[in-house]
């Protein structure tokens, strides 16, 4: 292929392509970011990745290239148990019914959606034998005064958290000033150019 881009000109010929097969772009993972110490983790969006570890790396690239953040975590979308989304002044916990306690408890992370149009925030952990029980226990332990539009419960064991050795990931942000608008102050150059042209 003849191109203005020498790298494109060097591309090898390939045969005709066939349509993508299902999951060619891999599974779906939800990404949560903690912006500051003391602030809750907040849902940010998704990445596609072949496994949990790659999802973590790609999440770091997709969501924390700019903004300061101290920690992220990722989990497969299918691990997220979602309550019904409510409307008006209806609280999502009003639809949660009591579930008999079972043995074999696991830890679940609970998230609340406090405003429609915003994203879910982490509110705490509960011990339960099933997702449904986790919502019930959360209604007893984590329900506050604010209306909750939607609740998520995620098994803690399915989450890839930030480890101590990962913290270095964000240490290089400070060296990358060339990615900030503040590095491109053209005002002085423009001013002297305008003064020069005004004199001519």
């Amino acid at each position, binding site marked *: *292929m003849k*191109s203005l*881009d020498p790298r494109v000109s060097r591309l090898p010929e390939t045969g005709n392509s066939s349509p993508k097969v299902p999951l060619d772009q*891999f599974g779906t993972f939800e990404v949560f970011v903690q912006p500051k110490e003391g602030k809750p983790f907040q849902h940010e969006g998704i990445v596609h990745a*072949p496994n949990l570890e790659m999802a973590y790396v790609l999440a770091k690239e997709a969501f924390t290239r700019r903004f300061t953040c101290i920690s992220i975590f990722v989990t497969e979308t*299918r691990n997220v148990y979602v309550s019904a989304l409510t409307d008006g002044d209806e609280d999502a916990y009003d639809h949660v019914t009591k579930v008999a306690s079972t043995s074999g408890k696991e830890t679940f992370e609970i998230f609340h959606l406090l405003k429609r149009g915003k994203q879910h925030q982490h509110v705490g952990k509960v011990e339960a034998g099933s997702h449904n029980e986790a919502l019930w226990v959360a209604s007893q332990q984590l329900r506050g005064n604010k209306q909750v539009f939607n609740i998520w419960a995620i098994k803690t064991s399915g989450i890839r958290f930030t480890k101590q050795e990962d913290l270095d990931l964000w240490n290089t942000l400070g060296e990358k000033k060339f990615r900030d608008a503040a590095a*491109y102050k053209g005002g002085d150059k423009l001013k002297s*150019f305008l003064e020069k042209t005004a004199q001519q």
Partner: protein
Amino acid sequence: MYGGGNTFEGIKSDELTGEDPVKLAEFEARIERGEKIEPSDWMPKLYRKQLIRMIEQHAHSEIIGALPEGTWITRAPGFKRKMALMAKVQDEVGHGQLLYSAAETLGKSREAMIDDLINGKSKYSNIFNYPTFTWADCCFISWLVDAGAIVNQLANAKGSYGPYCRALDRICAEESFHLKYGHHCVIYLASGTQKQRDMFQEALNRWWPPMMHFFGPSDKISVHTEILMKWKVKMGTNDDMRNQFLDMYVPKIWELGFTIPDPNLKKNTETGRWDYTEPDWEEFKRVINGDGPCNSERLEVRRIAEERGRWVREALRTAKTEYVTPLA
């Protein structure tokens, strides 16, 4: 940050029939109150269809838009410019990721979107079918094409679909660097040697017609535009967006002593809007339908990338995974 001048499919008169009138009224009332629509909310089929089309086009534009600027990474003038351009191109590809994810929440898989891009079924912003002959062409894109896109994106960020608005908020936050960087590049060319000034003037002459096309054909208010605006899918007419861009950037271009290649371009003091020579919409249609200077190259690059990466994706794919629609 390359969304702009979306082409909406004509709406057939029967497309709204068959919708539950009670649900439709609730849906419209929610938008009227300024609330966002979320993926699990009920929505009319037409709303879903037009949104998928719009967000998908926007995502493709980010990915394809990385190519004309990427052309100059290997030959950027100096290390600082090279670092900045690489960071900018990386941002654009990242924006593509965010937008594909938002479109997926409406039920179209990423695989299907990429297939439709490569086989020519989906469109992307027409302006990226033009070549970047010189460094100055690259600077034109970084400054002015980005500026045009920001005008559109700031408007669309106030739209009604939650996941799209949230993706746009993230994208706009990164755009400020692009715009400042682009302006910085052009100030340096403008205040440089005569040869540098000539180089930018020539780029401006080449890119002005596609820039005017960027916002899309003049859309007279029709029933169709009305419903998309009522549902806050479309946040302003193409002419409004074009006019806003001219308002903000023509004075900045003139300030640098460049001429815009349209003798009729002037602000009409009576209407408060810009007069200009009507862009050549026949050319616009021709290029969008595949006959532009770089259409085949742009798609071929994407196709080859897909083919060359296929074995890696196959090696990484695990049988255990199943497709799940993203949550929000």
